[in-house]
């Protein structure tokens, strides 16, 4: 549910705390206990004045907003994060956990790009486990139960100590929009925001909206509906929705989600549930951490229990009292409420996880029991489950409906195509989940900063990262239900593994994006070089099968196979570990022991990744051919059928690669588009060259002739 909190609220929200454009030196900055962080150096900095022009304004302080603000500041932009309540920054609105299958990959990638959530998870985690441990490293799902308070503390302390980042408590009334910069595509340009209550305008070159469930949010419990983005929090200002829809003409849709009731821990008989223990050696999310904050033996367990026929009965009896469930709005197919679970799959027993909410928390989170019926019936329902026979509800579950912006209106940089400088991230783009939000937030924030600093925006390919898969799916296909990441969405899953996210993304993040610190960059280079050296050393061990047998007597090596094998070949065997090879050849291999597991994975996956490579290169070439965003497909003087033109106009793919993935685009259409791209690129080049020559005053005499030719050519084109 409300995976992002936000900084937008109604006019009458009392928490507004902004003094003036000129003298805001004592802007509210919550004092936090200084974290003696083992995990990251906390740098204190002096707060910036709010009065001046910001490069980037981020609206919302949830998972998307915090990553966006931090990333923008890392890239070098003067950044302002506006949130409704500073103390809810980094709040986990729904489940107290991070990662999982598919989602864990996103956390690793956000960390590889120097984002916050991986390190925050390592700090706040109280129960670590790698899901899918027995199914192969490509689909391992690092996951942790979190202590809500610790997570929030970490995020807040990180943000408040990030240079160039200012945090402001307030709510945004509207976006300031003006005429576009004619040099760039787009119909509008964003120039800042106006705050509620007093109409303060704050200007910025770019704005990132991360409104989560707050955009025209309404809450549902039983038959009552009230405006709100999260229980206890007002929804965003109607002015904001109005700007998006009416002023900017964006298509929006409505989605719903929900959260379960929180249960009083002491009222649950956990002896009736199945104990579920964490990994005995917790694996940190972050590539920078060697261990987690929580000691292995201090981790808390989870409990597993099941629904009973009584649960189904209560759901059926209360259907007419449940207006959330009766609505047509699309909810998450992947995280359904207990109502939709029993209605879709009747007569079954469904899993319910009882998860701790924190080290000192008195509450349990019943994962799988998201519900929206009246509170008294919620109580009846949970009491149908044996361990909760006498359970008490602390806070009832509820549903949320909210607006999202159809994400096909965004570029792969997560910028609204029609509006220069406006970026969106998180649930506003139709996704669900903390990790999906964080990933988009980071990317939108980095790009917003680049835009503000007049640097070209950057994109991630679906061939190199799950973040790329996520963004490409969103902007080129759109959503019909809340979008959640799965490993099966990634075509190149065997190459995009959680273990190698740093190799894939950290160098790019430093060299091309600028969102990675040099410390992390240097570390990733060290890792990359060591792995490379180790693989070379393994390949240099070139022995006959009989010699291998002598060296590793315990390994069954068939002699019928090729007579010479390298160490790398051996490492691909199921029962051969790097440790075994290193003890057989200590002089060449023992220095790489810290990478034992990574080397084993690299060895096993190498042949498959090599196979993927050709296809990846092909896709990347196509993705490098960009289609201008301002093309009028209906008048484009190339041979395209009306249907194809319509599809292209609706989706506006940003690259030829994206165009080829659209349903209904024909080979002939792609060839013709390709020609168009070639021609426009060539024209641009010619134009550039000409300008260059003009500038240097050595313009050739035949320029007029050239121009004439060009005109002729254009006339020709237009005739058809």
């Amino acid at each position, binding site marked *: 549910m409300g995976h992002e909190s936000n900084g937008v609220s109604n006019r009458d929200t009392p928490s507004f705390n902004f003094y003036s454009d000129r003298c805001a030196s004592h802007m509210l900055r919550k004092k936090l206990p200084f974290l003696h962080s083992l995990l990251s150096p906390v740098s204190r900095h002096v707060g910036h004045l709010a009065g001046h022009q910001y490069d980037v304004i981020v609206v919302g302080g949830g998972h998307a907003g915090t990553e966006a603000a931090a990333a923008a500041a890392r890239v070098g932009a003067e950044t302002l994060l506006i949130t409704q309540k500073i103390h809810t920054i980094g709040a986990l609105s729904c489940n107290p956990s991070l990662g999982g*299958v598919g989602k864990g990959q996103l956390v690793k990638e956000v960390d590889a790009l120097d984002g916050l959530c991986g390190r925050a998870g390592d700090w706040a985690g109280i129960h670590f486990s790698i899901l899918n441990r027995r199914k192969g490293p490509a689909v391992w799902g690092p996951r942790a139960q979190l202590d809500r308070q610790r997570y929030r503390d970490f995020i807040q302390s990180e943000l408040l100590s990030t240079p160039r980042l200012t945090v402001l408590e307030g709510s945004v009334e509207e976006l300031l929009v003006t005429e576009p910069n004619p040099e760039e595509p787009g119909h509008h340009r964003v120039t800042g925001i106006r705050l509620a209550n007093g109409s303060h305008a704050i200007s910025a070159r770019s704005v990132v909206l991360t409104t989560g469930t707050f955009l025209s949010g309404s809450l549902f419990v039983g038959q009552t509906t009230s405006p709100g983005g999260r229980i206890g929090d007002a929804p965003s200002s109607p002015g904001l929705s109005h700007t998006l829809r009416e002023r900017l003409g964006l298509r929006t849709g409505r989605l719903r989600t929900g959260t379960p009731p929180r249960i009083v821990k002491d009222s649950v008989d956990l002896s009736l549930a199945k104990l579920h223990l964490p990994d005995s050696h917790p694996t940190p999310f972050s590539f920078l951490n060697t261990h987690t904050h929580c000691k292995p033996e201090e981790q808390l367990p989870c409990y597993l229990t099941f629904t009973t026929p009584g649960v189904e009965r209560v759901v059926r009896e209360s259907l007419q009292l449940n207006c959330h469930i009766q609505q047509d709005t699309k909810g998450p197919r992947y995280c*359904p409420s207990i109502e939709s679970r029993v209605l879709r799959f009747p007569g079954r027993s469904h899993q319910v996880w009882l998860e701790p909410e924190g080290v000192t928390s008195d509450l349990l989170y019943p994962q799988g029991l998201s519900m929206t019926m009246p509170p008294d019936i919620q109580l009846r329902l949970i009491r149908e489950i044996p361990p909760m026979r006498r359970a008490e509800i602390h806070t009832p579950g509820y549903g949320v409906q909210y607006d999202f912006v159809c994400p096909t209106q965004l570029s792969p940089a997560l910028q609204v195509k029609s509006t220069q400088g406006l970026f969106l991230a998180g649930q506003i783009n139709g996704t669900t989940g903390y990790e999906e939000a964080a990933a988009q937030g980071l990317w939108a924030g980095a790009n917003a900063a680049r835009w503000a600093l007049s640097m070209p925006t950057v994109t991630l390919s679906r061939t190199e990262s799950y973040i790329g898969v996520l963004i490409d799916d969103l902007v080129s296909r759109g959503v019909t239900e809340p979008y959640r990441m799965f490993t099966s969405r990634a075509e190149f899953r065997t190459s995009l593994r959680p273990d190698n996210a740093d190799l894939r993304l950290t160098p790019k993040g430093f060299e091309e994006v600028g969102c990675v610190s040099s410390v992390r960059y240097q570390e990733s280079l060290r890792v990359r070089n060591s792995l490379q050296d180790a693989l070379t050393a393994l390949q240099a061990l070139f022995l006959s099968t009989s010699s291998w047998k002598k060296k590793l007597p315990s390994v069954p090596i068939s002699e019928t196979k090729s007579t010479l094998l390298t160490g790398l070949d051996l490492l691909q065997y199921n029962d051969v570990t790097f440790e075994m090879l290193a003890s057989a050849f200590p002089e060449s291999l023992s220095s790489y022991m810290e990478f034992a597991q990574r080397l084993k994975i690299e060895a096993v996956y190498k042949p498959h990744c090599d196979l993927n490579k050709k296809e990846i290169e*092909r896709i990347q*070439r196509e993705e490098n051919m960009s289609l201008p965003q301002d093309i009028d497909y209906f008048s484009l003087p190339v*041979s*395209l059928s009306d249907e194809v033109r319509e599809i292209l106009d609706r989706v506006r793919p940003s690259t030829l690669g994206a165009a080829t993935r659209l349903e209904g*685009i024909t080979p002939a259409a792609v060839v013709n588009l390709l020609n168009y791209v070639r021609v426009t690129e060539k024209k641009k080049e010619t134009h550039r060259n000409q300008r260059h020559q003009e500038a240097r005053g050595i313009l050739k005499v035949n320029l007029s002739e050239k121009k004439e030719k*060009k005109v002729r050519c254009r006339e020709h084109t237009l005739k058809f």
Partner: protein
Amino acid sequence: MLPLRSVCGGIWRAAVHTVRTSRGAPPYRLLSSTCDGAPAALADADTIFALSSGHGRCGVAVVRVSGPASATALRCMAGFTQRLPPPRTALLRSITDPRSTEVLDRGLVLWFPAPRSFSGEDSVEFHIHGGPAVITAVLQALGSVPGLRPAEAGEFTRRAFQAGKLGLTEVEGLGDLIHAETEAQRRQALRQMSGELGRLYQDWSDRLKRCLAHVEAFIDFSEDELIEDGVLNRVDVSVRDLQAEIERHLKDERRGERLRGGVQVVIAGATNAGKSSLLNKLCQRPAAIVSPIAGTTRDVVETALDLGGFPVLLSDTAGLRDSSDLVEREGVRRALERVEQADLTLVVVDSAHLPSEVDRAAAFLREHLSSVIRISRCLLVLNKADLLPEKQRQKLDMELRGVSGLPAVCLISCQTNEGLKDFLTVLHSSVKTLCGDPLFGAPTLTQARHRAHLQRCAAALAQYQRYRDTDLALAAEGVRVAVTSLGRITGRVGAEEILDIIFKDFCIGK
């Protein structure tokens, strides 16, 4: 199935004029993965081969190979163990199967090292004898050379285009060419997909997709959801069965091939226009029942013909009309289906129904045509010419030729044999054009393509078995590759489709 959209030729030309300014621009990749359902088809490093000469009876057939492994193919099939022959020189060699070293044929081989070749890549040409058996054997032998795979339609041309080897006029035709190719492929696919073979592939494809969905569900959800333990075991059984079935099929692939060996000519038109009479005339025997009763022919009547050396499969179909008779309605459905799959349609019209004025006759025919066929090539046959007054007949004959929007028009009478000879000449030249056209889907090539995809599919299923217990991600990768390989034959498969199966079959929560 390939997506199909009509392309307007005139507008294409406009694009080409703009191409003129782009000479010397870097070569780009042309086609997309999803468009022709063949992503790997366009990877540079692949080496492709195909029969480049026309299909049908011919003395010499040319098989072309292009790509980095061309030299390998030359070495192992033409016995150049030491060094390669001098470039661009024809040499007479024995052509052998690299697996069995059996001699397949004696023919000319030519070696074109890059960049001086048609495609700009290393290329080899085999000039062999034109019999279908020799061609099939050579294509299959090439398929067994590592790194080689059958070309997708038009791939040589695309590579040539990418290498900057095509002149402007040739580029000009490329859009039309690709459109025509997809058209030819579509017809061929339709033909195969509506048959027994199509149902078989479709069934495999459905079962494989289900396997993949279940493995994916197990990977993405089993940690947090109730996915019954038996799921993977059932997948194991399915995968094993499928692998065995596909391997068996690969050993038995010659069955049914011959049926697809000719130009598909379909006779269509309104009831009682004389379609069956035309069939009987063409095959010179009473293959179809002929009567003056409208709606005599209810099913498709097929007969194989040798038309001046070209294989033709002629089908007579039920007359097109709205009917309340169930059997006849089915006949009409089948007739329309045949027309859809045809390489050439003979639209038969009863001349007596023509308006007497020529202008109105042309309009009438145009409208009639649009009601019978949509895309495929056709000839208009005006039957029962003997029923027309001599004067009108001559006028029609003269003035309907070359009227815009009408195909070739032949005025004949099956009763008196009038005009039949001229009609045969026109038909023969049309069939000849079709056969000489390398775009016309040569069945051996299609067979070789299918074979390659099926082999890859079976190999990928073996990968599933190999990794099943150690690494499910790699095992699933095997099923994925199997699904895409089969998808090249039956149509594409996307991630969303798999997710849909997952959610249909399982109760999935978070």
